[in-house]
């Protein structure tokens, strides 16, 4: 359960911070450019943050009390392959679809 205080303080700060990032050059810095080292590192923010967030959620899911679940591992792999080969929407469909298939099969057996 997320407390109201935590939610609203986070949302307010995230809203302001995100706006300032978007407004940075358009509104504040104008035509000044970012230094090359900053641009180089910014390119890797996405691939640096998302896998770090997702790996523990996949390996130690809360739904199973933190023990690795083969169905979720296979589903995550399916989502990754579909995302790399096809598209964003295909990745979501492949990930959830695989999990449902395995869980349905497990119920039948």
């Amino acid at each position: 359960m997320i407390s109201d205080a935590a939610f609203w303080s986070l949302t307010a700060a995230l809203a302001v911070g995100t706006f300032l990032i978007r407004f940075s050059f358009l509104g504040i810095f104008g035509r000044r450019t970012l230094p090359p080292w900053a641009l180089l590192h910014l390119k890797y923010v996405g691939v640096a943050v998302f896998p770090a967030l997702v790996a523990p959620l996949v390996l130690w899911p809360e739904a199973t009390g933190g023990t690795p679940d083969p169905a979720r591992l296979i589903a995550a792999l399916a989502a990754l392959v579909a995302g790399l080969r096809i598209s964003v929407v295909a990745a979501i469909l492949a990930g959830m679809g695989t999990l449902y298939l395995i869980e349905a099969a497990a119920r039948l057996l």
Partner: protein
Amino acid sequence: MTEAQAFRKGALDCAPFILIVVPFSLLFGVVARDAGLDLLQAMAMSVLVIAGASQFTALALLEDHAPVFVALLAALAVNLRMAMYSAALVPYLGHARLGVRALMAYLMVDQAFAVAVRTYEAHPAMTPAARVAYYFGCMVLICPFWYGGTLTGALVGQAIPAEFSLDFAVPVCFIALTAPLIRSLPHAVAALVSALAALALAWLPWSLGLPVAALVAMITGAQTERLLQRRGRA
């Protein structure tokens, strides 16, 4: 191109993104309710922040009992890329009035940004006013669908039974967001380091494993790119 034409062209060019925005926003609404947020909270986040990936990030970390500052740090890091977008738009839109630029900043999203810059480059003859109209045309379809999707997801979310394993929608969503970012060897190396470092550092208090792993992975990606460039030149 008149302003009205540019606006319509922008809306038309960005219309396909509705197919991405709708499932993502629906999912956010559903996941937000699943995490215990009420309707107002789910909507407030989508309207005030209007940046899906960071909203999922913040939500996942809060649900995992991370401290607010760690969740904020991670969510803001996810949004840092938009500083690049902001810089890239200045030559095309920097002439607009401050209030208009503020509205543009609020509405800045990945796909529409990419389409807008591509169009500005391909049509150097576009007037400054037409460029502004085109930009708002790009966002006019995406923004309402983002709000509407969140609202719909939040409204129907509670009717979805637990057998649907919606907890897993969050990691799947992040995998879907990450896959198209892996465009080169340095990106792949950074992604791998990020995942392994996060698992290895999971014991750190206050969920600090995430920012530390992200920082290590970012530096690894940048250094790998430098190394490959030097090798290429040698």
